[in-house]
């Protein structure tokens, strides 16, 4: 080891929620995902939908994990992608809301059916489908709440889960209108 060896500071990796506004066109999502896989970054959650039909824009809500340096790199790299217009770091910006929707199918018979309904009620899950041997519940909220609900359901019977990934927005009256007008 050289005498010049710097003391490596072990930096903490934190979870960050990014909100992107991108052109709604083929290839944009591939570019964003390709950036993460090509440069070795992680995607923990991803959610994409059109948000503005007239201007043809989509929002990508993305949860990633890394040191603050890595996150800064990710943001700068994302901005290099031509159809990416806005990159917001919601975690850094201030208070924000993170929400996700889950559809949970539970195959269950006998006494556990009552337990399943009781838990669903406690979590304020909606029952979307019922048969004599199954339920489909719909639940929205923080990912951690969804995790807890799904864990409980799993202990009651065979489950199938479909989740949307996190959708996020900042609290307060701040909007992107001005930024969007510059596109």
């Amino acid at each position, binding site marked *: 080891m*050289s005498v010049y060896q710097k003391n490596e500071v072990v930096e903490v990796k934190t979870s960050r929620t990014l909100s992107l506004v991108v052109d709604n066109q083929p290839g944009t999502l591939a570019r964003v995902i*390709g950036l993460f896989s090509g440069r070795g970054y992680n995607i923990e959650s991803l959610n994409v939908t059109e948000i503005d039909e007239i201007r043809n824009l989509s929002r990508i809500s993305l949860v990633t994990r890394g040191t603050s340096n890595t996150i800064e790199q990710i943001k*700068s*790299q994302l901005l*290099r992608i*031509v159809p*990416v217009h806005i990159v917001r770091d919601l975690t850094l910006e201030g208070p924000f809301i993170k929400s996700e929707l889950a559809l949970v199918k539970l195959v269950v018979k006998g006494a556990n059916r009552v337990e399943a309904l009781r838990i669903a009620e406690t979590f304020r899950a909606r029952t979307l489908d019922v048969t004599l041997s199954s339920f489909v519940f719909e639940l929205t909220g923080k990912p951690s709440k969804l995790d807890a609900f799904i864990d409980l359901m799993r202990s009651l019977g065979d489950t199938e889960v479909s989740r949307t990934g996190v959708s996020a927005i900042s609290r307060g009256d701040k909007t992107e209108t001005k930024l969007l007008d510059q596109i």
Partner: protein
Amino acid sequence: MTLNYISGAEAVIKALVDNEVEVIFGYPGGAVLPLYDALFENKKIKHILVRHEQAAVHAAEGYARSTGKVGCVLVTSGPGATNAITGLTDALMDSIPIICLSGQVPTHLIGTDAFQEADTTGISRPCTKHNYLVKDADKLCEIIHKSFEIASSGRPGPVLIDLPKDIQLSNVKYVNKISKIKKNYNNNSSNIDENLINKVATLLLQAERPIIYGGGGIVNSGPTASKLLTELVDTLDCPVTLTLMGLGCVPNTNKNFLGMLGMHGTYEANLAMHNCDVMLNVGARFDDRVTGRLNAFSPNSKKVHIDVDKSSINKVVSVDYGIVGDCKEILLALVQEIKKLHNQKKIKSKTKWWSQINHWKDRDSLGFKQIGNNIKPQQAIKSLYEQTKNFDTYITTEVGQHQMWAAQYFGFSKPNHWMTSGGLGTMGYGLPSSVGVQIAHPKSLVIDISGEASFLMNMQELSTIVQYKLPIKIFILNNEWMGMVRQWQELNHGSRYSESYTASLPDFVKLAESFGIYGLRVDNINNLEATIDEMINIKGPVIADIRVEKEENCFPMIPSGAAHNEMILSSDDNNKDTSNEGLALV
């Protein structure tokens, strides 16, 4: 109907003309026949027929790098497009503005595994700055205009436009180029502000051991940036070093120029980088060839980084000040601020710093001994430089030892005169690149400094050279080895020379003659100068087979995994085994 409808293909060509394209490098095929038909009628664009699509992109790179214009390429679908990928990646890594038009099967056949179909936009996505698949003929013109804007603005790069054959044949209404496009395609808005410039200027003025390290971004910013950099260096009277891509931005004759830095940079440049107290990086990106082992890179300096690409700042080396923007604007602001401050503050004396640097210079890290009659490759480049320095000489290179020797021993007094594959390290770059350079500068002396192995990679371009009567001089340092591979095997792998010998070489003189051009060969140092003279004086293209010392190594060198202050100047210095981490590095 008397509306001015033209075919998609005609619209493409018209759009190219509107974007000031004069030359296009390409190769025809089924999916681009309508475009070739439109070119047939056109008088404003000269088409250069290459012999391989990779060469088309390299030629366009040479054209772009030596002129500052956008290079233009036309290839067919499928294999045409996939062959172009290496060139596009090369252009992306070295930030060269390229427009690549590729043919595609008609839209209704996309996705059916049609003949010569490839997912070109999918394949080229990570190796272009941006790409388009044109599915709507109405958007064709707008996409082409935008592509030129994207390729040439901010940090330049290649843009590919995939053109299905039915779009080329459809009727479109031509849309003119909008004189000024509002959108900033690079999103990274500049953060130049007076306060920041003032801080950096003060830092530079107060530095006791400053160094400026410049890169290819200065070339991309235009000749003014190079002049401003030289002015900054002269004002501060501080040492300056350049990366492989930046050579020529400060004249090699400038007394403050320490030569190239990095893996095969000079001892004084690397030691000055290691020991400086303030480092100003202009348009370079702390590439691993430059930094050596990162955790030992210039440990005690304040660092300032000027780059047009925000993501380059703090990517591998954390800096104290990052300035995002075009380096000519920033350099101008910096030079003005320094001149203003200069009247108030005294520049710190750098006598001690310079005497330290001169002490390092005394090691003569580029020194070599020419003994006996065998030609040392270093001497071959030195002689080539001496004998061509009064011409307007453009140098292209391939990749390997000869490239490093060219960078070390050839002197560049101006930017845009040195074309080499830096980031990607593409063997076979130099010969096609020289085609583009010679097309752009028909009256100048264009030399491809090559190695015999690299030359074999794209030697089909001899045919192009002959067809267009391009008087390119191909200067092959022939040591019958993939020299850099052999050198690494010697240093890191116990001299086990696995597959690095270039067997079954052609007779280069006969090869030249078979194309109807001159071939020269020299193997004795006493005939070297005469051979170079003859090569220069021949009007047409020449292959000069320079038989050099076979097992010469390229020094000085920072062994892989080592730091700037752990350079070795000769094989005798290589007494430390390469670390395990170092062995894993490329």
